[in-house]
């Protein structure tokens, strides 16, 4: 009962406050949130870069093999999928590494930065956790600065992994370092892009989606720019990916293009900072409009909720993929020019000279089909999100059975991705038509696109079966998608053995129209998909639901 203690003992000395107050503890928190992701990305790169280099050494042991590779690559579709062709006349091994591998380091770095930035900025704000942090003695800028520092750190780690990977593989020191730095800075550019998009919308999902769209656009702009001129035209320079590639590492290294990346980061961050001053916590720049006071008949129809939840994503990606398909398809004419200059191509590559346009379009279709495949899986996994968020119980108690709900979900996702495949086929067809003035391509490519439907259904069914087995297992379906993308984009360059290529379902689809349609694989995939979907539904009826 004595009043000996004059001051509260649990409060520390008050310090001066500024816009960055609390930065240190926020950094610790953000690092704690992000450390596992950063570690996984970094380790993956650290392993995959030397592994790829060793695999390429095996496939291209001497200059003759490299020269053949160079000839094969000297065409628009290859330029789209690799990089500016600086060493066409003397294609050294390391020029090949820089040309063919770098793009596939830049894109993951960009994706990692986009997802991480969106999560640490708008994601934290959307969930209301930022509000809690801001109520502590925390400076106004501290959360964003801390998030961006963590993103920068993640990119540094990734860049260091790239550089070390190159060094382990036997690359020269300064060129390896340049590629590492280029990867880190490109990642950071897209992190900064996301910092801006995160200011514009209220949702982390929309923020990262927009940024991913900008990444896709950059990919396309860089490709088309480099097709116009093999070592980069004025158009290429509009793409952040080009800035990294224009360092000409392992050919004729120059550092200054990286200054463009650095300047872009600075400008974007200033824009993001300005925008953040103009809005309230939790709000976007545009206020959300009022909606309907009652549900429409469409929302209450079977599968209506699923359509509402995944439809927006499907529509946005459908438009994006359609534009991609158009752009790729219209490249066909430059291919034909190229074939005339190179009469002995057929001897070196499995591309059919008599049907160059056909085989190119078929390859483009396979590449673009990764889009619907990924959306089929993400669409099914949305059901898992609904379950873990506790929203599924309400729908079930309203009187729908689990199997019915999941079955309808599966069908809605399938219909959405099927529509997307049709769009892809139409896009490629219209593109080729615009280049060749032959209308038959439109119908032919659309039909060719439809041969992918059983495979797309198979991916969705695998996701459904895993989801039925257990909510935690469902994300494993992404592994197959990533593997498929790896095989489709890099399989040939890495010289993967046939059995490893065959693990990707897409590899079993004939490259219509340049190859004859093979019905058997499609039937097998269709039947397997149906069986797995039914298995998934049966399993789902037998397990506990996670929450709600």
């Amino acid at each position, binding site marked *: 009962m004595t009043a000996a203690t004059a001051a509260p003992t649990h409060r520390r000395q008050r310090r001066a406050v500024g816009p960055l107050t609390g930065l240190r503890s926020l950094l610790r928190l953000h690092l704690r949130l992000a450390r596992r992701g950063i570690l996984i990305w970094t380790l993956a790169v650290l392993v995959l870069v030397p592994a790829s280099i060793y695999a390429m050494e095996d496939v291209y042991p001497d200059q003759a093999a490299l020269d053949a590779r160079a000839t094969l690559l000297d065409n628009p579709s290859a330029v789209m999928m690799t990089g500016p062709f600086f060493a066409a006349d003397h294609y050294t091994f390391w020029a090949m590494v820089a040309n063919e591998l770098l793009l596939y380091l830049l894109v993951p770095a960009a994706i990692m930065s986009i997802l991480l930035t969106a999560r640490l900025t708008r994601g934290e704000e*959307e969930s209301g956790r930022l509000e809690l942090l801001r109520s502590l003695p925390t400076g106004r800028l501290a959360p964003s600065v801390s998030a961006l520092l963590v993103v920068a750190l993640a990119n540094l780690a990734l860049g260091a992994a790239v550089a070390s990977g190159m060094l382990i593989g036997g690359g020269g020191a300064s060129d390896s370092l340049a590629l590492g730095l280029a990867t880190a800075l490109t990642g950071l550019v897209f992190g900064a892009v996301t910092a801006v998009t995160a200011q514009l919308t209220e949702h982390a999902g929309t923020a990262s989606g927009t940024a991913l769209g900008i990444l896709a656009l950059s990919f396309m702009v860089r490709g088309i720019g480099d097709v116009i001129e093999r070592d980069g035209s004025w158009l290429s320079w509009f793409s952040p990916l080009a800035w990294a590639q224009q360092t000409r590492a392992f050919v004729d290294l120059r550092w200054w293009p990286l200054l463009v990346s650095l300047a872009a980061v600075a400008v974007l961050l200033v824009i993001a900072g300005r925008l953040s001053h103009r809005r309230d916590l939790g709000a976007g720049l545009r206020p959300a409009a009022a909606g309907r006071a009652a549900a429409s008949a469409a929302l209450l129809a079977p599968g209506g909720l699923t359509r509402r939840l995944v439809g927006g994503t499907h529509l946005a990606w459908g438009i994006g993929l359609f534009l991609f398909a158009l752009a790729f398809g219209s490249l066909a004419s430059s291919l034909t020019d190229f074939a005339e200059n190179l009469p002995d191509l057929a001897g070196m590559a499995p591309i059919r000279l008599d049907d160059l346009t056909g085989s190119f379009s078929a390859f483009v279709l396979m590449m673009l089909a990764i889009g619907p495949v990924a959306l089929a899986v993400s669409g099914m996994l949305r059901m898992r999100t609904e379950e873990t968020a506790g929203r599924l119980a309400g729908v079930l*108690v309203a009187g*729908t059975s689990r199997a019915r709900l999941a079955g309808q979900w599966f069908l809605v996702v399938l219909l959405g991705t099927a529509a997307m495949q049709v769009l892809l086929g139409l896009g490629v067809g219209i593109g080729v038509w615009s280049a060749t003035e032959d209308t038959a391509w439109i119908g032919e490519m659309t039909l060719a696109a439809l041969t992918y439907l059983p495979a797309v259904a198979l991916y969705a069914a695998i996701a459904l079966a895993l989801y039925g087995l257990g909510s935690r297992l469902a994300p494993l379906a992404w592994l197959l998608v990533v593997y498929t993308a790896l095989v489709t984009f890099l399989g040939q360059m890495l010289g993967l053995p046939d059995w490893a290529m065959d693990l990707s379902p897409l590899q079993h689809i004939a490259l219509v129209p340049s190859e004859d349609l093979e019905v058997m694989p499609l039937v097998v995939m269709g039947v397997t998909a149906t069986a797995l979907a039914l298995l998934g539904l049966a399993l789902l009826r037998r397990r506990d639901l996670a929450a709600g």
Partner: protein
Amino acid sequence: MTSPEPAVHVRDLTKTFGATRALDGFDLTVPHGEVTGFLGPNGAGKSTTIRVLLGLLRASSGTARVLGRDPWRDAVAIHHRLAYVPGDTNLWPGLTGGEAIDVLTRGESGERHRRRREELIERFELDPAKRARTYSKGNRQKVALVAALSRDVDLYIMDEPTSGLDPLMEAIFTDEVARLRADGRTVLLSSHILAEVEKLCDTVTIIRAGKAVESGTLAELRHLTRSTVAATTDADPAPLTRLDGVHDLVAENGRLRFDVDDRALHDVLPVLTALGVTGLTITPPSLEDLFLRHYGDELEPVTEDAS
């Protein structure tokens, strides 16, 4: 009021998650046409029980019958006859409140439902045109309440339904539940707010660590509790201390204060009369006391969360 089988009948129910026993031989009976309170601290197994009753979780052992059926096998048939209010409502951020209500009441249609929906939206002062992401917790809870209460069903299962509601809305909720009872509907109301249960419930089941520790009407349960007696007298209170069932006696400046087991009350009154009491108040037990007596000194270890 009597029916061959109660609306909810749970016997010896056990649910394990790995090594955790969320429910451990739990019993629960919800008679038709009554409001049954379901009390217990956080993590005692209330939500797990409700999820078993909704057919979302499968019982590890024991039986659960809801409206005469097995909730795991006949979930859909049962869902047509019950409505559910979760304690922490999570809504689709992109849907408006009104749209969410309609999604959650998909089976209902017709003019009567529409009018009831409008009435409830008005009573709970909800703006149905706003997107769910802009709602506060209280508003999300109102969406769940409007959706469940607007359904014309036999059984209403509510898992801490008033969390996040302000006192005004709580009063409206209380009123709506009273109307349900007057209408002969059955309600299972889980709560850790004792005043709410005391106001609304005919019978109460108390759960702790996955077991039913007490169950019965409020009157029955009060027999287990102690009333507080305050009296004014100048006499020596020593005779009181000799009585069984008198606790914590304090005598100061002619004022007496003690707790008495309710079943010992009629032994105490003659003694008080003999002491020449000039003022007397007997405060009836609240469920608060009941609760504290069950969990009082053991409250701390109960921290695990069953969900």
